[in-house]
């Protein structure tokens, strides 16, 4: 491990100031991913700014009916919080489908958003990887790509974002609250992560020195009709091959509102509000609708060999999640 400086942030503006005035600074909260990456010599921060003592541990109600989740709320506290499990059950389920209890106890909301990909090439400094070292190449495209992306890939990179939590947050239309040297801003979760394009080394839209302070959930939590379905290679402690967070509002058998996101398929949670509007809203909650929607959402999906099976698995997972959400609470 490289030597690095460690500083404890006293306040947000000081932390942002520190990070924006130097190169190679990382913020650390739970550290469940960052410390691993440092040990593997994948990342070499010059300094770690510890955010853990900042007051970002609360889950609070919002005046417009939504909920604000502080960036330092742990995954466990978030998943088991009574408001979240009652009003946003899809989010609780997604979080509990990920990692292990030990990791969830330590991992934070903000940190989860900033997880790096689990691509095996990214994790191994002995081999090329455009995300780790731009310009070195991407052996994954013709190599071990079982867990990698089928949508939104680029010539440079076919990595996936590994989070379960973010998939549910994307379906819930969450908003990421950010502060930084040039002030505060709000970023819809759907726009927070970027596609790899020509710069796979950049995962998110955060600028230098910007800090996630909270994630806001809107009032609509799909508590009545939602599902999180995760398909993986073992029954715990495995990243999603395909996951789907699906939330529906149904009136008299017709869909009035929908939020559906896919995980394990792209560099970001995959959602299309436009397709939801066009192919779900106003349509009957039945298999024909699911079929039309999944066909459109997965249009252009492309396999790279080992991960070709995802082209078959994604549609059935989408249908299963939508079917489960539509029939939640019914005894089948």
């Amino acid at each position: 491990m490289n030597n690095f400086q460690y500083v404890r942030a006293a306040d947000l503006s000081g932390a942002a100031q520190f990070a924006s005035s130097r190169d190679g600074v990382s913020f650390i909260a739970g550290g469940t991913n960052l410390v691993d990456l440092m040990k593997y010599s994948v990342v070499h921060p010059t300094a770690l700014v510890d955010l853990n003592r900042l007051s970002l541990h609360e889950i609070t109600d919002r005046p417009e009916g939504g909920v604000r989740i502080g960036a330092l709320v742990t995954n466990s506290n978030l998943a088991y919080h009574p408001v979240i499990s009652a009003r946003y059950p899809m989010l609780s389920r997604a979080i509990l489908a990920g990692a292990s209890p030990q990791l969830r106890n330590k991992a934070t909301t903000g940190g989860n958003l900033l997880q790096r990909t689990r691509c095996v090439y990214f994790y191994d400094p002995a081999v090329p990887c455009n995300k780790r070292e731009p310009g070195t190449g991407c052996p994954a495209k013709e190599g071990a790509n079982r867990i990698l992306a089928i949508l939104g890939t680029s010539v440079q990179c076919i990595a996936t974002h590994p989070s379960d939590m973010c998939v549910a947050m994307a379906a819930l239309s969450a908003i990421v609250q950010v502060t930084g040297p040039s002030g505060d801003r709000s970023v819809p979760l759907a726009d927070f992560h970027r596609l790899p394009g020509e710069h796979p080394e950049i995962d998110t839209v955060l600028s230098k020195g910007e800090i996630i302070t909270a994630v806001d959930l809107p009032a609509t939590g799909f508590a009545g009709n939602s599902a999180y379905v995760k398909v993986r290679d073992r029954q715990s402690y495995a990243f999603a091959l395909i996951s789907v967070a699906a939330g529906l509002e149904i009136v008299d058998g017709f869909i009035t509102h929908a939020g559906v996101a896919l995980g394990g398929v792209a560099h970001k949670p995959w959602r299309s509000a436009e397709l939801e509007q066009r192919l779900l809203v106003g349509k009957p909650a039945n298999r024909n609708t699911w079929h039309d929607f999944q066909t459109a959402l997965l249009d252009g999906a492309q396999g790279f060999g080992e991960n070709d099976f995802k082209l078959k698995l994604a549609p059935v997972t989408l249908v299963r999640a939508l079917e489960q959400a539509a029939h939640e609470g019914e005894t089948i």
Partner: protein
Amino acid sequence: MNTHLIGTDVNRIDGPAKVSGAAKYAGEFFAPDMLYAYVVSASVTHGEIKSINIDKAMKVPGAVKVFTHKNRPHLPWFDRTYLDEDAPIDGSPLRPLYDARVHHNGQPIALAVAETFEAARYMATLVSIEYKALTHQTDMAIAIHEAEKVKKTNRAGIEAPPKLRGNSAEAYAAAAIKLDKEYHSPTEFHNPMELFTTTVVYNSDETLTIYDKTQSVSNSQLYVTNIFGYSKDEVRVESPFVGGAFGSALRPQHQLFLATLAAKVLKRSVRLTLTRDQMFTLCHRPETLQEIRLGADTDGTLQAIHTETFQVTSRYENYFEVIANWSGLSYRCDNVTMEESTVAMDTVTPGDMRAPGAAQGVWAIETAMDELAVATGRDPIELRLQNYADKDQNHDKKYSSKELKECYRQGAELFDWTRRKSKPRSNRRGSTLIGHGMAGGVWESPQMPAAAKASLSPDGTLTVASGTSDIGTGTYTAMAILAGETLGLPLDRIIVKLGDTELPVAPLEGGSWTISSVGTAVTEACKAVSKKVLKLAAGLDNSPLKGASLKEVEFSEERILLRSDRSRFVSLQAALAAGDGKPIVEKAKSGPSLLKQHGYKSFTHSAVFAEVEVDEDFGTVSVCRIVSAIAGGRIINHEAARSQIIGGIVWGIGMALQEEAVTDHQLGRIMNHNFAEYHTPVNADVHDIEVIFVPEVDDIVNPIGAKGLGEIGLVGVAAAIGNAIYNATGVRVRKLPITLDKLI
């Protein structure tokens, strides 16, 4: 022998030490001024080191030395010097840091040594290496056509396939039912929890005390003394506790070599621990391809078995394990051909991994038998009974015992086999398909020469010792049980010592032969002590045992009783009080009795039953239930035996569904080299497991009638699960692991 301990549930005598942290493993011994070392691993698969620069690494505060092939001390040039007790006879063992050649990805090519672990690890990242890369091959599918295939020869203790019997080609051609299939199993890694570690303590008299993770202290000692020119008096190897090994610690791994080299040159104590990633650069279960042809009558009676097996080895050593032989062993068939070849590739040499060869070989033949049951419409158990062999078919020898029929019967009853629907896809609940399958398992029960010492103190405390290893299997406890049984002592009066080259020599801890070999030696040593105790007891004034022979007395509850009249006895205390005040010490050497075992072969057997649920859309498999009925001779410690079998079953779940080292063939490198990506079962994957030990009396296998259980628990499990998956889905997967993509 009386039976107050044997066959009961005995908690491990080393359990309190393990849970309290008092049990010290190889990486937990300290020495003053100890140095820490860290391995630099090659990142190319085949080639030469053009240049290696250590300047930056040496500038790290605390840096002591970076060893490379350029600056290493003199090492023996003769490659046979590097052999160990378990090395393949053909080939040349890897000589770390010997020259610039890279034989496999991950090969150790430099060793960073520093005052702290962190400094050594950082140094390793700063060693810059230029390679001249040469072409490599790691893809068995290609290598099998291109590489030189070598027919199997003998490896110490491993036999070549038996000569063909009958004419399998003709019988196959004439058979009414024909099956011709290929079975493929992947590379798997042992991955014991404890990382490979060696702590070399450099003593003031320049001798070495080496704490090594090993399944044989004497093998480690042999290796070190041969290579580094020490005498046996100068190198003591200790390994009191081993955190799992599964065969990976049979041969010395490179951390032993490198730590010893560093200690010798630097004249300092050195510790070297490999990382989890580096555990994937060691020996492993070789990838195999098995072509099996079965010919049978319409009722399933076997007429022909033809097995052709290919297994991967390295280019520098011709390692092989017995794979083909298992197909011809267990079923009655007059026309059998078994062929076995190795395929050399640019990989590290494979090694024995829990049930080496049988894990893959029995998986293939037991899957093929299930396919034959389908083809003939027979029930899988009935088919196996129809072809049941009362003799070892390969050697035409009697079994010393084989209660496999009872395993089938008791296993089927507990499992409720009658619930099974023979037609695939006929048992479902919503989108969940339910399936039931079974398979048989078999493993050898050999006895090896072993030595042990027993020492009974005047206060009635017994110490038994043998230079064997306890890799978590319960050897400490089994030795105590056998000693306690022989001398009528409670366990708290017994001290067990093992894992030390100062102790009597035991064989490698492998092959499921430890209970058979070391258990017998311990029993013999204790018997010799008991003879002396009896002599003392009989010599007492008015002794009721006067003139009694060993056979006429019984040692129980710290007394020596007359069998004919148990009210007449001498207490152990009284007998020992008549001694000279010194401990009674006896050594015993035991080995297989040629007289008794001539004409016999010994095996453990199992019948494994599996229930699975398969999600029809996702292809995800849940193994809801496993019942394993074991015929394993006399059970010494029921609790430890059951644990062993459960552990083997969990391995079987991993083998069936998850385990696979994924190689990028362009790079020649295993890419999923960590526990996040190389999957083994987690708790959520393991559901109901039930173990039955069927009664099996065997007085030929060895004097104590026990058979080792380290491997049998695994054998057959993957086949039973695969057969259950077929029953659920109608999909036959002949390429392990059965991941969901193969079922959708």
